[in-house]
C-alpha cells in the first residue's frame, strides 16, 4: 500500500475538537432517568433541527414533541400489539402455525421488504413482542419526525440530516437519544394517524427518544472499518 497520512495510536487521540468529540462519543441511549427535560432545552434542540441542510432548502419536515407519559405508554402498547401480530405470522420459532408456513412467509416478506425484515429489526420485533425490549425505553420526551412527501428529491435523507443535528445537539448538552424506527407502525390503524395529523402530505418517518441517560452511556468505542475506494493521480487504491 502507498504511504498515506500518518495514523496515530488511538490512546493518544484525546484532543478531538468539541464537535468531533460529540460525534464520536454519541451512543444510542436505551435507559433514561424519570426526570423530564426542561422545555427550553427541547426548544433549543428543535432549533438545531431547523437549521439542518435540506435539498433545495425545502425543509420537508414536521416535528411532533410528545411529553405525556400516558400518551407515550399508549403508543408503546399500540406498537407492541402490532409486533405480536406480525410475530404470529412470521416468527417460525414460536408461531402456532408451525415452522414451515411462517418460514416461507418470512422469506417471501423479506424479499418484498428486505430493509424492514433484515435479521436485526426482525430480532428486535420479536423482543418487543415478548416485552423484553421497550420501544421508547422509558424516555420522558419523544420527538417524531414527519416528512413532507412533496419535498425536493429525497425527503427521507433531509429527515436524517435534521434528526442527526438534533441528536448531536442533545448529546452536547448531556442528554441521551435513541432513534426509534418502530414509530412507523403508528401509521397502521386510524387512531394515531388522526391524532398525530399523519395525512397528506405528511408521513411518519422516524422517532427520537430524548431524556437524561441512566449511567454514563456515552463514550468512545471500537467499530468496524469500512473499505473506501480512493481515486487519485490516475490510480485507484483501497483504504480502510
Amino acid at each position, binding site marked *: 500500500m502507498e504511504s498515506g497520512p500518518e*495514523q*496515530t495510536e*488511538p490512546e493518544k487521540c484525546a484532543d478531538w475538537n468539541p464537535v468531533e468529540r460529540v460525534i464520536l462519543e454519541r*451512543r444510542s441511549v436505551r435507559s433514561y432517568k424519570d426526570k423530564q427535560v426542561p422545555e427550553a432545552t427541547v426548544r433549543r434542540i428543535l432549533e438545531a433541527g431547523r437549521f439542518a441542510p435540506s435539498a433545495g432548502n425545502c425543509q420537508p419536515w414536521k416535528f411532533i414533541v410528545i411529553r405525556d407519559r400516558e400518551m407515550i405508554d399508549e403508543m408503546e402498547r399500540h406498537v407492541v400489539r402490532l409486533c405480536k401480530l406480525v410475530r404470529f405470522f412470521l416468527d417460525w420459532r414460536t408461531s402456532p402455525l408451525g415452522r414451515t408456513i411462517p418460514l416461507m412467509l418470512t422469506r417471501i416478506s423479506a424479499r418484498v421488504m428486505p430493509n424492514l425484515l433484515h435479521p436485526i429489526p426482525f430480532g428486535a420485533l420479536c423482543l418487543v413482542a415478548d416485552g423484553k425490549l421497550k420501544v421508547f425505553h422509558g424516555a420522558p420526551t419523544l420527538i417524531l419526525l414527519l416528512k413532507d412527501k412533496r419535498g425536493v428529491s429525497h425527503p427521507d435523507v433531509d429527515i436524517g440530516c435534521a434528526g442527526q443535528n438534533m441528536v448531536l445537539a442533545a448529546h452536547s448538552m448531556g442528554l441521551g437519544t435513541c432513534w426509534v424506527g418502530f414509530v412507523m407502525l403508528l401509521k397502521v390503524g386510524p387512531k394515531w394517524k388522526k391524532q398525530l395529523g399523519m395525512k397528506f402530505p405528511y408521513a411518519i418517518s422516524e422517532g427520537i427518544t430524548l431524556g437524561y441517560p*441512566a449511567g*454514563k*452511556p456515552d463514550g468512545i468505542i*471500537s467499530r468496524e472499518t*469500512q473499505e473506501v475506494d480512493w481515486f487519485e493521480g490516475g490510480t485507484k487504491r483501497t483504504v480502510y
Partner: protein
Amino acid sequence: MSYMTPKERLLIPTYDNEVYATTGRVAIDADACNGCGMCVKICPGKAIFLSGEKKEKKARMEEVFPQCMSCNDCAAICERDAISVTVTYDFGYFFKPLHRGPMSPPRKFEE
C-alpha cells in the same frame, strides 16, 4: 473484496441457523465485572444477563444465539471497561455484509 454471487442475492438466510447467521459476541472480563447490571439494562438485543450470587454476580452472554448486533453500547456504559466486542455480526446470503475491515477505535490522521 468480492460482491455477491447470484445465489447469494437470491436466497434469504434462516435467521436462527448458525450456518447462515453469526451474531455479535462480546467478551466479559469476569475479574473486572462487579455485576452492576447496566449492560443488561441497555443491551438492545438482550444478549447479556446477570447470574450468580452476591460477589459472584457477573454479567454473562447468552450462549445460544444471542441477538447481539455488536453495537458496543455495553462497552461504552461499563465503568470498569470489562466488556469488549470480539465478533461482529454476520449474515449469509442476501444479508451478507460487504466491504468491512477489522474493528478499530476512532483514528486520527495527521500529515
